[in-house]
């Protein structure tokens, strides 16, 4: 069976290499049939990679330990779902998933835009260049199909990865990471072909939005996994691998805003190219961080000699992007200028600068320890205060801009109009700030500012819907005729919920930790937690214990069961127990470790986190807004189809 997987990968590599070489030659020499043939090769690579992926999945499902990869990441007792999730749990499988998603996306994007031959002639080799790297790695450097005589049992899976969220979190992140290759390939194809009009933007608009949504949802699911599984009570630790997903998401967020300025005003063509290249290269960098073993974190459990190759390819792609953008600068320069510093496009520009600044400061926080170790041999770490400082410095103005932007008109706005539109949100913000101060929430300035700005943003979003509805006649008509705008506002509402949840759960949380014997209690934020005792438990591939902790307070009575699992092969893992309090939309989070098994004492940690559940609610609102923004608009599709009709170009996905 491994022979089939290896052969399928070799065939895919051959097809992709052909798409790269023949496609580049055809685009350069303007050969129509050769370009179509290269396009077909790229499309055909997907089924070949799919066969290789199915072979690996089958081996994982059967726990075929003659596959080294299966032996490294599963065991006989590992439940089937987790065994299959080992597909993205290790380095070789992750690379295969990258290639599978990339060839799938590339094949679909190329096929949907096949009539735009001038552009596609160059898009195909760019896709092939990226896919070629991953196919090369899988065929010659890091194959998932290495074989061995079957050992008695496998090495198992890291306990924290044995969680249902891990079935969705990595694939969603990969759908996002790889999805950013689509706008990148089209943008570079546009530069190579000289088609720097808006065709590439029209073709990739929904792809970018989809990739951005996958990345966003993937990160939220990852945060929820960290919260319920790791047992430290937090959801984001500024871990380099978490940052690896956040950076391209921030760059893509900047691009989604700035591309609107190009579409509406014909400006920022160079900047948009830079952002697309930045977002994609950051997604490559994220994969490099996760898979090269360069960072030692809980996510970077897989290490192998792919780091050098990856770094070289990353360098190549960065140089490739910079050279192309520089070469085509004359085509990208536009005569249109910003008319006023007080306009919608100006607020988008400020938003862009803040987003990119935040992404780059996070990048420096990730790079500094690596460079410090590589250059000076010193082990340094960049910790939470660094990131928190920049999150407050750039994040709070970003939050405020989210409310200001929709209130400002395109092109320019007079002070009188601004005074009129800002009045209600400003009043809402001031009243909220004063009320919070009076209620004693001034203990955290970032928290207070976040809530005050949040009130401003919430009022501006509500106003936008109310005024828009009045102008359009009905809410349905308003949203259906302006899907991107109002879908975007719903996404803003999701970010707002996220900000409120983060501020509430971090700035106003209560943490208590105490060693308890049965019958002893601890108090936290009005709750009394009494430890009753512990019991042993047994699962399919682990044993462990669960404590019983009776909780009372705020008119509620319930019992929590924090404990630990001891996996036979993989080792111990903390199991938190959480009560969702509907009154505060927050949680009572508990985790426990045995201090003395004979006496039955445990080390109990209690965290009361107000408003934390808004973070998870934000995920659903985010998806709803993104879907509305992505939903095809028949009228716009028709208009765009007419614009490119003579070039025989459909409007893309």
């Amino acid at each position, binding site marked *: 069976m491994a022979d089939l997987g290896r052969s399928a990968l070799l065939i895919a590599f051959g097809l992709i290499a052909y798409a790269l070489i023949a496609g580049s030659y055809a685009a350069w020499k*303007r050969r129509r049939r050769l370009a179509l043939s290269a396009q077909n090769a790229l499309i055909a690579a997907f089924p070949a990679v799919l066969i290789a992926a199915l072979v690996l999945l089958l081996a994982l499902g059967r726990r075929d330990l003659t596959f080294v990869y299966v032996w490294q990441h599963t065991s006989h007792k590992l439940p089937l779902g987790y065994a299959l999730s080992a597909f993205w749990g290790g380095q070789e499988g992750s690379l295969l998933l990258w290639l599978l998603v990339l060839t799938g996306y590339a094949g679909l994007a190329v096929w949907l835009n096949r009539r735009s031959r001038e552009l596609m002639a160059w898009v195909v080799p760019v896709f092939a260049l990226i896919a070629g790297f991953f196919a090369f790695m899988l065929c010659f450097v890091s194959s998932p199909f290495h074989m061995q005589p079957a050992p008695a049992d496998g090495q198992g899976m890291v306990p924290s990865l044995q969680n249902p969220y891990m079935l969705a979190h990595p694939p969603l992140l990969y759908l996002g990471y790889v999805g950013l290759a689509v706008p990148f390939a089209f943008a570079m194809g546009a530069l190579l072909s000289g088609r720097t009009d808006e065709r590439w933007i029209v073709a990739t608009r929904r792809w970018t939005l989809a990739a951005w949504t996958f990345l966003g949802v993937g990160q939220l699911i990852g945060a929820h996994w960290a919260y319920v599984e790791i047992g430290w009570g937090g959801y984001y630790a500024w871990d380099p691998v978490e940052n690896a997903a956040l950076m391209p998401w921030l760059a893509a967020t900047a691009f989604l805003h700035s591309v609107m300025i190009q579409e509406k005003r014909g400006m920022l063509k160079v900047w948009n190219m830079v952002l697309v290249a930045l977002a994609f290269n950051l997604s490559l960098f994220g994969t490099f961080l996760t898979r090269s073993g360069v960072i030692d974190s809980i996510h970077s459990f897989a290490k192998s000699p792919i780091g050098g190759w990856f770094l070289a390819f990353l360098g190549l792609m960065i140089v490739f992007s910079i050279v192309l953008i520089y070469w085509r600068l004359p085509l990208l320069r536009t005569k249109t200028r910003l008319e006023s510093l007080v306009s919608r496009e100006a607020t988008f520009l400020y938003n862009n600068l803040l987003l990119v600044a935040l992404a780059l400061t996070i990048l420096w926080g990730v790079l500094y320890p690596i460079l410090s170790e590589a250059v000076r041999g010193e082990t340094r770490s960049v910790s939470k205060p660094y990131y928190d400082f920049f999150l407050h410095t750039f994040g709070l103005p970003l939050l405020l801009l989210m409310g200001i932007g929709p209130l400002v008109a395109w092109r320019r706005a007079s002070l009188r109009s601004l005074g009129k539109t800002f009045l209600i949100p400003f009043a809402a913000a001031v009243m909220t700030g004063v009320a919070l101060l009076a209620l004693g929430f001034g203990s955290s300035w970032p928290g207070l500012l976040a809530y005050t700005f949040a009130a401003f943003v919430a009022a501006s979003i509500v106003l936008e819907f109310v*005024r828009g509805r009045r102008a359009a006649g009905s809410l349905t008509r308003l949203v259906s005729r302006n899907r991107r705008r109002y879908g975007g506002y719903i996404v803003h509402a999701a970010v707002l919920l996220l900000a409120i949840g983060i501020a509430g759960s971090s700035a106003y949380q209560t943490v208590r930790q105490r060693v308890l014997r049965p019958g002893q209690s601890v108090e936290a934020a009005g709750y009394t937690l009494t430890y009753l005792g512990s019991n042993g438990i047994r699962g399919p591939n682990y044993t462990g214990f669960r404590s019983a902790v009776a909780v009372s307070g705020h008119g509620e009575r319930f019992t929590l069961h924090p404990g630990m699992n001891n996996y036979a092969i993989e080792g111990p893992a903390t199991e938190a127990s959480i009560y969702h309090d509907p009154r505060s939309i927050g949680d009572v989070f508990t985790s426990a470790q045995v201090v003395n098994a004979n006496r039955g004492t445990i080390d109990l940690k209690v965290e009361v986190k107000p408003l934390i559940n808004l973070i998870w609610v934000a995920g659903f609102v985010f998806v709803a807004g993104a879907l509305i923004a992505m939903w095809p608009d028949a009228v716009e599709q028709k208009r765009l189809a007419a614009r490119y009709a003579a070039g025989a170009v459909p409007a893309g996905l």
Partner: protein
Amino acid sequence: MEWALALAAVLAVVAVVFVARPFLRDPAPASDRLDELAPEARQRLALAEERDRALAALKELEFDHRTGKVSNDDYRAQVGPLRRRAAEALRALERGEGITHERVTAPEERAGR
């Protein structure tokens, strides 16, 4: 395993046929030149984009005016230039109606060769 290699061979043959399809379907084409936009067509496309931008800006301005985001004075100051811009783009597109549409033409075809 032999069955695996046989399957791989089948996959390879199917892939080769699919890749060679453009040559098999059209072994002796009149022209094998890859389509490209004529310079006039590029100009026309730029004008169409400019027209759409101007019309969208007008629509946006009207909407912002109705929702109270743009005052009457601002509206009056901006609507004229925007209308002129849209009209200019439309006129330029109309003037170019007779020129080669965005049909793709090879340089030698355009040169009459």
